[in-house]
């Protein structure tokens, strides 16, 4: 799915006043590959290119709709139909902000860093607000529709909201299927501190 920066920017015409080739050469000349992180990380896919407009101006609505469809079609639901793993492990994933940086140990599991942007367990005071609070998420319902919606949101957020700031945890391979199930349990399990607040 990766295509070269030059090509993407050629598609877009240009980025602001910056010509595609200038951007491409500046990026490739400005970074060095290090440890497990190569210069291929600088290449954009179609979605990233579409969502990189200066001042986040909305792009062409038809293109956005197509990207949304593509994202939705890319979602892989859990093989055995089981959405929920262990909320305890999910809590660890939510707390862990490491993974895929050149300073991280590639042998260790990636984190989801949910707390960077969301409130979850209300007892954890160090939560960010780039995303909405997910405290009591389980009370929003436990139906199959709700489970599939949430799984899809985690897998590829652009299926609902093109150019959302949230990472594509499933589609980009940030979290494994098991980790996603664990995060799901952290969100839905009645015993999870997200839902079960001790007095």
């Amino acid at each position, binding site marked *: 799915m990766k295509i070269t920066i030059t090509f993407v920017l050629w598609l877009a015409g240009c980025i602001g006043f910056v010509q595609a080739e200038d951007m491409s050469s500046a990026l490739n000349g400005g970074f060095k590959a290090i440890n497990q992180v190569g210069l291929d990380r600088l290449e954009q896919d179609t979605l990233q290119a579409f969502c990189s407009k200066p001042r986040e101006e909305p792009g062409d609505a038809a293109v956005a709709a197509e990207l949304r469809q593509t994202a939705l079609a890319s979602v892989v639901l859990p093989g055995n139909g089981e959405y929920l793993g262990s909320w305890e492990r999910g809590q660890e994933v939510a*707390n862990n*902000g490491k993974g895929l*940086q050149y300073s*991280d140990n590639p042998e260790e599991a990636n984190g989801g*860093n949910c*707390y*960077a942007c969301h409130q979850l367990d209300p007892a954890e005071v*160090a939560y960010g607000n780039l995303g909405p609070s997910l405290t009591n998420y389980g009370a929003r319902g436990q139906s199959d529709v709700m489970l599939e919606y949430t799984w899809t949101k985690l897998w590829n957020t652009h299926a609902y909201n093109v150019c959302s700031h949230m990472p594509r945890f499933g589609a980009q391979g940030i979290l494994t299927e098991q980790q996603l199930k664990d995060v799901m349990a952290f969100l839905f399990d009645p015993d999870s501190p997200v839902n079960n607040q001790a007095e």
Partner: protein
Amino acid sequence: MKVEPIGGMARREFLKVGALIAAAVALPGKLWAAATKPDAAFAATDLNATFAALGQTPTESAGIIFTTPDIAENGAVVPIKIEVDEAVLSGVSRLYVMVEKNPNPMAAMFSVVEGSKPYIETRVKVAQTCNLYAVAENEEGFFMVSKETKVTLGGCGG
């Protein structure tokens, strides 16, 4: 001084040292001699063992005014201040700073020399959210006050 696992021994050891210090402190000027470092207390790996190494679990005292942040932006540097209300707690000769959940709770010990104020400001590392202790010692024994400092996680990569 080696690590003293039980209170009794350590206490006797400590009193001996304490007496030496008391004598030393009474001497003027350059003749002041430093106390021996209480190695056992610094080497202790939990709070009870730290107290045991000093010889006594301190009793709560309103005479110690301990200023710490309720929540720290980073645990690598947590500013603390210990003051003593001398009307409540007189003759304080030592001040100690302890951080409950650090690998070694004892962070610092200060000898308050005659003429000086029982007053310390410093900055300590706090490994995780826990209680910080300010301990004061005078001839009657050990006194303490504790306060919790929350250490927060930060960043998009940690």
